[in-house]
């Protein structure tokens, strides 16, 4: 009776899929903003490159690549957290918590939905990037797979932590789900090299797994070198982050049981 059940994970994925397909605004929302972001940064990059910007002239896809990888990180976490928030909006958390659904199964279903939502939102945008800017993210091949695995692991870790905070503190912590990832935007050096940061802040940056991915992407697009060492370091930090987030989630869930906040998930 202690093992995770694929049936229960499947039930939860079905629940979120029913919700997603019942609402076209939800699907449109997945595609709309990544498209706007990609177009905006793509045109900016075209302008800077045409004005003689050195690095952009040498590596046409740096900005678009950055924004697409950033969206994997950001949308991955949002896809996880929004599915969790749907339970709180629906006041369904009490029903789930007294069902045989285990936390690990709940989290697994949220991870799967994060991938589903990310695929719906990002795949069309990558083809638009080819059409508009002749930038083919898929051409990165194995490197893209390494970037993706590391970014999605970070996004899930943050999603797990935020879900724990929401369980413990209720909807008063909702804004955290929407904004926490922006803390990573300046620190993980999405659009500029780590060397730009003040020396002391570089230590913080190198403690965050996405920093290795964005540095790796620049090395690939500008110097045409795949830095496997950076990907391995990112994976190591991700393993630590994921374990820490999972432990934090379980501690916050325990605290929520002690504080009686699982039935009352309002403000």
């Amino acid at each position, binding site marked *: 009776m202690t093992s995770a059940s694929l049936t229960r994970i499947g039930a939860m994925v079905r629940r979120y899929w029913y919700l997603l397909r019942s609402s076209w605004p939800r699907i449109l929302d997945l595609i709309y903003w990544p498209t706007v972001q990609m177009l905006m940064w793509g045109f900016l990059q075209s302008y800077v490159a045409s004005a003689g910007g050195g690095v952009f002239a040498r590596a046409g896809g740096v900005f678009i690549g950055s924004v697409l990888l950033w969206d994997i990180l950001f949308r991955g976490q949002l896809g996880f957290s929004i599915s969790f928030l749907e339970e709180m909006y629906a006041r369904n*958390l009490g029903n789930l918590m007294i069902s*045989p659904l285990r936390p690990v199964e709940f989290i697994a279903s949220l991870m799967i939905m994060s991938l589903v939502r990310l695929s719906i939102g990002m795949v069309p945008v990558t083809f638009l990037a080819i059409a508009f800017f002749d930038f083919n993210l898929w051409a990165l091949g194995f490197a893209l797979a390494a970037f993706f695995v590391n970014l999605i692991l970070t996004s899930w870790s943050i999603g797990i932590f935020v879900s724990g905070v929401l369980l413990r503190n209720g909807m008063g912590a909702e804004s955290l789900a929407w904004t926490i990832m922006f803390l990573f935007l300046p620190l993980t050096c999405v659009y500029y090299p780590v060397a730009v940061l003040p020396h002391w802040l570089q230590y913080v940056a190198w403690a965050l797994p996405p920093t290795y991915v964005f540095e790796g992407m620049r090395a690939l697009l500008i110097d045409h070198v795949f830095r496997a060492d950076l990907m391995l370091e990112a994976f190591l930090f991700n393993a630590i982050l994921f374990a820490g987030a999972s432990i934090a989630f379980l501690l916050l869930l325990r605290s929520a049981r002690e504080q009686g906040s699982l*039935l009352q998930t309002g403000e």
Partner: protein
Amino acid sequence: MPASPAAIEVDRLVKRYKTATAVDGISFTLPRGSITGLLGGNGAGKTTTIAMIMGLVTPTSGTVSVLGARMPDERYDVLQRMNFESPYVDLPMRLTVRQNLSVFAQLYAVEDIAGRIAAIAADLELTDLLDRPTGKLSAGQKTRVSLAKALLNRPNVLLLDEPTASLDPDTADWVRGRLERFRDTVGATVLLASHNMMEVERLCERVIIMKRGRIEDDDTPARLLERYGRDTLEDVFLDVARGRGHAAEASR
């Protein structure tokens, strides 16, 4: 897990929050197949007690066992054999009734999901509503859907927290009728928290009255009426709520 003759055993249960004591040292045992009413005013500790029985809230001290499993530590041994219905939790509104029931049937590992949904929908007069979004239903219809979810896995232990709150008298009476039928046919252990004395009198063979986190009285409805010298449980409830004690005490 050792077999226990009792369905629910609550022993010296306490729940303290930072500024208040919600449940203050209560003990009771519910035999298998019994139907018990948990009565009390607002803040009496009924919902907290039920939440601790379900494993949603960790007791400060004392123990709760359900079907021999200690809650909340061993909850996954028994959650598949329990269920819960309350107007304070909802089912996802955008999903159809059938989708909601099929998701929960899968969570509870119900066999022959389609057949079970068809049977319970027929029993609770939901067949025509199965393909409508749950959020488009009336309050009474939503209560029936929640009840269908609660009965889906044929629970051995059913916890009901004010199942007829905010329903019109006709719908409330219909729900009580279905609960009576469930009581008579399934033989499950039911704990029913309610403000509605008529409901408790009609459905329950035993009544536990709570006040400020403590058990004030615990007996059959008939013996409570006799002891307090009252004609209705509502009058008994008011006597307890206002600290008037029972007739025997009053006459001393």
